[in-house]
């Protein structure tokens, strides 16, 4: 009975979503206050019912209700309760429900924190979010219902994909979805602006904090996913360019461009059309990503073929959303010529160039990700291009962005002063060269490491120089407004990230070894003594656990316990053991026994020494923090638009 209540809640949510999607937009169009007023209550109501459906599904998992097919497929009696909760989004149906749930979190937040915006505008924004909700709720109800019963009820269920049975994975999908789905708000703002017209650029200021927060969540989700892959997959990689990662990375790249474009449009009124287009792209890529990953179009041909309704619905939905919004854009886009004119050497130009690099990178990732599908459709063969393609092109596209980055804050709006730029560039370049020379000592002539240090110091020193400049030139209290502090944090994050990537990629040492108990192997200045394998077990798995003593200069630093787990349904999963440090990770993964019948004998082990690898995620966290901090800017929460847009003509008063 209770699962049916969940389904009923979804139906009611769908009806409310239709009301939320249609009535307020009609009201805003006809200037009907009663219809406009429907927006907030409808959003709240939809939120309540989607929350109820979510709660019912969680309850079904917690109470082992195997009569629900989705529960039976993704959990069993041995699964601990916390993984039963996360199993809610462990497969397709539940992920879609999570998507709608988070969409409603955003809608309700928007309804609550938009009192300072014109009612008609909020009505349109909530209306667009309602329409997106209609699309997803209908998809869930008609093709991917998590509440379907399975009769007769099985005595025990299947298992949650063991890949997902990890503390890192418990919060990774919700955080990632906060980012994905958060771009729907920027999208809704743009559509509302296109529908309404004639509002100047005020709406961009209102949209900015939402975009920043969504992007920051997306950053956090990607960092968590990358960290998880590093810790779990057992061979020390942290980014694989696989479709699941790319699906979140494409909206992230476009999001970077969007955040910067919004700053230009808000402050200078330039590039409004470009800002709108980017927000359409960011959300379209989020949608595409959700479906690519979850429908299994890319990972398995059979997933699509087994249920063509899903595939057709997804294609139709994508075409309606992307095609419809582009059509609206074509009809209603603002005249591109608005905004203050800017010189070739100006912050606007700098941001535009960076924007082009980031959108090109996103297009490049999109092409590579869809390559098997394109090859299939055009009969060129269904082939993967993989890291050789992505790695090469991405570095080519991002190198100029890194080179340009420190100039950003120094560029004035409208027209920049060349002398300031050269003095900054000179100082940052000297710092970069000195550090690169110092780096040659430990880099042992590896060019990539030296280039990495130079690039990271270039970005870091350039950013630091600007921090100092502000400190000297501005009065206390006005030096680092939230928006600027966010920018500085995020740019510092780029420097840290760069250092981590280049140093860990070029200086890491790995050894594939066969060790019998008692044998020792050295990697760099560390030596590893294999002390055999013991059996251990958890709630729903048993494992062979290696004991590896890590030593340096004759002293034992730590003992690591890499595992090879076998879950109750037979899936095998490695658990690497990591001794983490700010400047290096020691990483051990357990391979296979050399003789399958003798687990007490020799084993294959992978040993890694990875310098600076932690800086990769540390840099990501700085970027995330930058997004959140910038969103706290007081100006974004102003009750009304400041009359004097001219306040932004002096560059020092207008951080970006």
């Amino acid at each position: 009975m209770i699962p049916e209540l969940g389904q009923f809640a979804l139906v009611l949510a769908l009806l409310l979503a239709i009301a939320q999607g249609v009535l307020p937009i009609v009201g805003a169009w006809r200037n009907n206050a009663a219809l406009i007023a429907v927006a907030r209550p409808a959003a709240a109501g939809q939120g309540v019912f989607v929350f109820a459906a979510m709660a019912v599904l969680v309850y079904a998992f917690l109470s082992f209700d195997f009569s629900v097919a989705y529960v039976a497929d993704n959990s069993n009696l041995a699964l601990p309760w916390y993984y039963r909760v996360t199993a809610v989004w462990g497969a397709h149906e539940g992920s879609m429900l999570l998507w709608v749930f988070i969409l409603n979190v955003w809608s309700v937040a928007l309804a609550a924190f938009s009192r300072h915006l014109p009612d008609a505008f909020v009505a349109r924004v909530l209306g667009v979010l309602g329409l997106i909700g209609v699309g997803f709720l209908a998809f869930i109800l008609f093709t991917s219902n998590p509440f379907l019963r399975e009769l007769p009820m099985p005595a025990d269920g299947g298992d949650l994909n063991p890949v997902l049975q990890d503390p890192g994975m418990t919060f990774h999908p919700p955080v990632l979805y906060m980012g994905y789905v958060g771009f729907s708000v920027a999208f809704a703002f743009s559509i509302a602006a296109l529908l309404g017209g004639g509002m100047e650029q005020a709406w961009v200021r209102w949209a900015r904090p939402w975009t920043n927060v969504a992007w920051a969540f997306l950053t956090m989700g990607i960092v968590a996913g990358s960290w998880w892959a590093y810790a779990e997959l057992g061979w020390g990689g942290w980014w694989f360019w696989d479709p699941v990662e790319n699906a979140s990375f494409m909206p992230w790249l476009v999001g970077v461009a969007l955040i910067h474009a919004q700053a230009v449009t808000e402050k200078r009124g330039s590039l409004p059309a470009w800002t709108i287009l980017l927000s359409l792209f960011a959300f379209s890529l989020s949608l595409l990503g959700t479906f690519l990953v979850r429908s299994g179009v890319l990972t398995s041909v059979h997933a699509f073929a087994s249920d063509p309704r899903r595939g057709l619905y997804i294609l139709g939905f994508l075409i309606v959303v992307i095609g419809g919004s582009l059509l609206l854009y074509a009809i209603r886009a603002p005249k591109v010529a608005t905004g203050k004119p800017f010189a070739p050497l100006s912050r606007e130009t700098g941001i535009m160039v960076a924007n082009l690099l980031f959108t090109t990178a996103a297009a490049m990732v999109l092409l590579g990700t869809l390559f098997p599908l394109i090859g299939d459709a055009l009969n060129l063969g269904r082939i993967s291009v993989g890291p050789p393609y992505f790695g090469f092109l991405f570095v080519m596209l991002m190198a100029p962005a890194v080179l340009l980055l420190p100039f950003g804050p120094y560029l004035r709006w409208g027209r920049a002063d060349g002398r300031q730029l050269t003095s900054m560039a000179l100082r940052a370049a000297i710092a970069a060269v000195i550090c690169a020379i110092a780096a040659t000592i430990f880099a042992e002539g590896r060019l990539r490491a030296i280039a990495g240090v130079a690039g990271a110091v270039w970005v870091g020193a350039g950013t630091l120089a600007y921090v100092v400049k502000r400190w000297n030139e501005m009065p206390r209290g006005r030096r680092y407004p939230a928006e600027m502090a966010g920018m500085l944090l995020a740019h510092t994050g780029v420097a840290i990230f760069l250092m981590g990537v280049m140093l860990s990629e070029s200086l890491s040492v790995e050894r594939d070894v066969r060790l019998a108990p008692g044998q020792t192997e050295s990697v760099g200045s560390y030596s590893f003594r294999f002390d055999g394998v013991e059996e251990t077990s958890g709630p729903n798995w048993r494992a062979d656990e290696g004991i590896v003593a890590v030593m340096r200069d004759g002293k034992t630093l730590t003992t690591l316990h890499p595992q090879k787990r076998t879950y109750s349904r037979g899936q095998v999963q490695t658990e690497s053991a990591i001794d983490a440090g700010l400047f290096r990770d020691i990483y051990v993964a357990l391979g296979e026994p050399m003789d399958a019948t003798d687990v007490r004998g020799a084993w294959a082990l992978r040993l890694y020494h990875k310098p600076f690898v932690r800086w990769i995620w540390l840099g990501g966290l700085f970027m995330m923090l930058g997004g959140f901090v910038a969103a706290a800017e007081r100006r974004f929460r102003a009750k009304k638009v400041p009359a004097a847009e001219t306040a932004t003509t002096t560059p020092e008063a207008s951080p970006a």
Partner: protein
Amino acid sequence: MSRFLPLIGFVLLVGLFGFGIWWNTQHDQHEIASPLIDKPAPAFSLPVLNDAGRTVDKASLLGKPYFLNVFASWCIECVHEHPLLMSQMKDLGVPLVGFNYKDDPAAATAWLAEHGNPFEVIVADREGRTGIDFGVYAAPETFLIDGKGVIRYKRIGPITPDVLDNEIRPAIAALAKEGQ
């Protein structure tokens, strides 16, 4: 007018995909002949995966036909092809030589441990230089090379049961007729 460009681009893209799918359902196209077919395979000399001391070159494989299967741990389509390699391709009487393309050896080893190893020997082309000579730009691809070192057949994309029965078995039969 430029406002319409994004829409036009999108419509063209959808049209291209739609046309491609329609065209493929209407036409049973055979693989476009590779310029390498019936030409001698490029000479190569590559280290054996996880056994850096050993190398395998073209000359050492002459004498009997073999398949050269391009795979990598990053290649998603290879995962779909692999069960067929494990179950049927192994038993065709023609040895499978793995060509590990632009891959991390540790990742490749882990991948093979997970999915199984159907190969008699695996050569590693870490930089992808030999891949260029073979015209490989992605994975999976499969070459059938005869005893004289001539490429007789090439498949781009995963091998499917259809391809196995309609293309690969006939190609092997043709080799057998020539007495190879």
